[in-house]
């Protein structure tokens, strides 16, 4: 009698558990996935990105990588994410001032480099996009970039046998949804981690690695004059500031003010990371400087000091010729060759 009741109770609990499980749409069909552990140096603060909502799997990352390099994500199948985000340029756009898009169109801002994204709270030069998973929506649908209608893209991918297979491997069913698409793109993008530069080796006191005298001098200048905004270990504090870059009437880009409708945000743009900076030219939100020495010159004597200029740079950053040279040498130690040549991040040729 008592045993029978126990069996019924257990069966009932099991039933409740199964019912409860089915409500989580994303995990309803648990695919046979292999979880992936991101390797990060110990010294870093915890990521902003919440992996609980998008646990990394080898299958998810593989799907994301294919999506990232697939020109089918654009209107006329001409432009992939990787078209503008090139690995050898730290996933920036080498030698291009502003982004390129479908049908020969151009955007009005420079392509940001992509790495260490899991510590970043908001995205784009004006911080207008508030989550990594939703970020690709902007370039995919922008008519000057990939120009693709999201609904049409979902249909296009659903009609492709390779994607049906890859979505099934990552998510358990062949169904393509925008949420799955975005989460897979994030899975790939969060693996773009760059902490293997010479600077990192020096800081970690790895045997046999030291700064040269010039690099050491540059590090000193950097610490005194640049590090409050370009704060290690990320070499940005992810804030949005007016650095005194002169306004260009032909671009009429008001920066953060476009997002907040607040005049106090006029001409404010995101502080970019200086990691891999020497391989990710051109510089500034509109890519107007092709050489880092032009950036030094701007801080030295070329600022436009409007109302919203940041207090930290309102008096400019005086730099002697020697300091500029040493700063260049130091910035060179922030280039992470392992990251730039990491085979797991490299471009895929997609033909179907």
């Amino acid at each position, binding site marked *: *009698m008592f045993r029978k*009741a126990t069996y019924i109770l257990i069966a009932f609990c099991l039933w409740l558990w199964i019912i409860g499980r089915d409500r989580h749409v994303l995990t309803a069909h648990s695919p046979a996935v292999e979880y992936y552990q991101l390797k990060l140096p110990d010294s870093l603060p915890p990521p902003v990105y919440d992996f609980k*909502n998008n646990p990394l799997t080898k299958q998810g990352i593989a799907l994301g990588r294919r999506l990232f390099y697939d020109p089918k994500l654009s209107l006329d199948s001409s432009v992939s994410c990787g078209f503008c985000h090139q690995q050898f340029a730290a996933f920036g756009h080498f030698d291009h001032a502003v982004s390129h898009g479908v049908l020969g169109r151009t955007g009005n801002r420079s392509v940001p480099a992509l790495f260490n994204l899991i510590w970043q709270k908001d995205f784009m030069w004006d911080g207008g996009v508030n989550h990594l998973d939703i970020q690709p929506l902007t370039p995919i649908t922008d008519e000057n970039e990939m120009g693709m209608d999201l609904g049409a893209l979902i249909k296009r991918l659903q009609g492709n046998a390779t994607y049906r297979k890859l979505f099934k491997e990552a998510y358990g069913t062949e169904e393509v949804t925008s949420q799955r698409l*975005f989460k897979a793109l994030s899975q790939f993008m969060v693996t773009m981690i760059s902490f293997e530069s010479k600077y990192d080796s020096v800081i970690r006191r790895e045997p046999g690695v030291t700064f040269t005298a010039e690099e050491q001098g540059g590090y000193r200048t950097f610490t005194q004059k640049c590090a409050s905004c370009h704060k290690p270990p990320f070499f940005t504090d992810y804030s949005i500031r007016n650095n005194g870059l002169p306004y260009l009437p032909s671009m009429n880009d008001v920066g953060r003010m476009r997002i907040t409708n607040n005049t106090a945000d006029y001409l404010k743009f995101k502080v970019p990371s200086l990691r891999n900076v020497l391989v990710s030219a051109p510089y500034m939100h509109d890519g107007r400087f092709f050489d880092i020495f032009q950036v030094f010159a701007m801080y030295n004597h070329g600022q436009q000091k409007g109302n919203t200029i940041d207090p930290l740079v309102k008096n400019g950053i005086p730099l002697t010729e020697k300091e500029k040279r040493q700063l260049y040498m130091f910035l060179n130690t922030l280039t992470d060759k392992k990251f730039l040549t990491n085979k797991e991040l490299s471009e895929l040729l997609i033909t179907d």
Partner: protein
Amino acid sequence: MNRLLLLIFLLMGTGTAAQQVQLEISHVLASQPMQLQTAVYTNAAGDTFNITLFKYYLSNFSLIAADGRKTALQPAWFLVSEDNAASKKILLPQCPEGEYTQLSFMIGVDSVLNFSGPQDGVLDPLHGMFWTWNSGYIMAKLEGTSPSSRLPNHMLQFHIGGYRAPHVTQRMVTLTLPSPLLTGPQYKPRVMLQADAMIWFNGDYKISFRQMAGFMTPGTPADRIADNYQHMFSVKKIVSQ
């Protein structure tokens, strides 16, 4: 033993019993029914206009009893669109048995969902109700044309959104029901709601299309239009079957 079985059946019963309330929404402009493209309306500023698109989110439904006790229904989001008849019928499932005198809900999508990455269902960004360049939901959208508009093609484009202070556009609506709403297994109530889109322009904050034929960012005009449309709903009647 039998008591245990009974308990289990009771538990199952409460989980699945269809205690539903059906909302049926109709759209009007003042006294005229809404008709996309063809009908011509006139706002208080004297501008004539037509409407080509009208859609908005509803969420956070609650039922309120005569003693003021508020019962929040399970979280659900609905995208109501004039061009989609099915979307104008909202089924509120699992309404606890009782007698209610007021209905309340939000026009818009909770702030947290505006910065939590891509959602699915009606909140999927592919419905065109999510801003790409300035993340966040468009809580309500009205488009059309007016000869008074100075925008290209004389268009009207009001995309109302914003979830970050000071420009917050979610609005709570509380409607007093004309007769008590009874819920329970034996009832299948239908609540007939009407939304008057004219209030977008003729509310406390008057809009003349000559001065403003569109607004598509978070900002003060969006806040004021949301203040206006907070009052667009009324309950026409309750039908109990």
